[in-house]
């Protein structure tokens, strides 16, 4: 059995997971990061994407949105706005959100609005991608 570390995944509306974990892969701002036990202390940000973590050799998947991660050799804390299992995702809602965002992108917007819409589109597409991949 490989070395494990304490993993805590907290979403803004619930505690998603707390316990031992062998490996964690999360989407950072500059690509995916893989974390094993005894990683050096690190702080980094999450962007919307797919989160994977391995417990007892089995991979678990989740869709995450913006947040940040604190990594120390013994434990990892991951805080995100939303964390959802593939089966929890509402495909219709994500589809609607995607259409809505695309519609808004075609219109003239301020830079702030543009970023918002882009982030929303990103989240929706990420949700759809993950349900497609794991169903």
């Amino acid at each position, binding site marked *: 059995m490989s070395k494990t570390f304490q993993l805590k995944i907290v979403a803004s509306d*619930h*505690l998603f997971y707390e316990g031992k974990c062998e490996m964690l892969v999360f989407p950072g*701002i500059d690509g995916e990061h893989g974390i094993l036990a005894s990683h050096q202390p690190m702080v980094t940000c999450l962007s919307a994407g797919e989160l994977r973590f391995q417990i007892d050799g089995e991979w678990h998947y989740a869709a995450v949105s913006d947040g940040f991660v*604190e990594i120390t050799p013994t434990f990892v*804390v991951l805080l995100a706005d939303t964390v959802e299992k593939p089966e929890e995702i509402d495909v219709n809602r994500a589809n609607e959100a995607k259409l809505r965002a695309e519609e808004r992108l075609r219109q003239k917007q301020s830079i702030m609005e543009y970023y918002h819409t882009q982030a929303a589109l990103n989240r929706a597409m990420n949700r759809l991608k993950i349900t497609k991949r794991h169903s």
Partner: protein
Amino acid sequence: MANIREIHSRMKSIKDIMKITNAMYLISSSKLKKARKSLLATQPYFEGLQSTIHDILIRTPHMHQVFFERREEIKPGFRKEGYIVITADKGLAGAYNHNVIKRAEEEMQKSKKNFLFVIGQVGRQYFLRKGVEIECEFLYTAQNPTLYRAQLISETIIEMFEKGELDDVYVIFNKMITPMKSEVQFRRILPLERRKFDRRKEGYQHAIFEPSPEEVMNKLVPNYLKGYIFGVLVEAFSSEQNARMTAMEAATSSAKDMLRELDLQYNRARQASITQEITEIVSGAKSLKK
């Protein structure tokens, strides 16, 4: 002895008001249930957020970053202070609104340049009536807090802070300590405090920041503020419902007390008038006999 009709109409009006307070009690108790559920669900995030940020700040190497700027060259009294004041949308919640507003006014004495960001109708109306300048476009309700609203709020604040329109930002809100007791909280959210001394004492090592400390902080701080404001909104909403529930419960029970007393008075007055009538009839009959 009070007039029978007077007492009767008084009782009726008390009964009518009691109906209102009782209904509000029921409404707020059901809302409280919902608010408490979301509070419980958010609490791990809120607490995790604060302890993680604390941890991260200990490990942060020194850097020049706008969120840490203390702007000490600006003397107290001339600093542009921003206050996010969280009140309710409605009154009838006991001292809930009053406490927050009082605290805000106390703090506002300290500086000449105050910027008020008021959430909730009661606070907004109060400051408008007093002629205090408040940010007009900052229109958010205190009901059912969402992450999206928290994001809009934190973006406004951060933008003003970055431009130098604000030097310090505080939040003032009610926190429920126990269901019976709530306390006004006053916290500074910007600039962030770096605890240099803690770091040296505990021998913490610097963590690495991927891709770079500045970039991480640029994303992390807005995210942290968003989460923090969300947590505060949820906390305040739940505290509001609780305050209203206890206030309405007290109002209903004191209405019941008043009714009991008035009932007694009413019966006494009625009895007195009956007795008087009988005496009149008897004495009338007596005089006829003679």
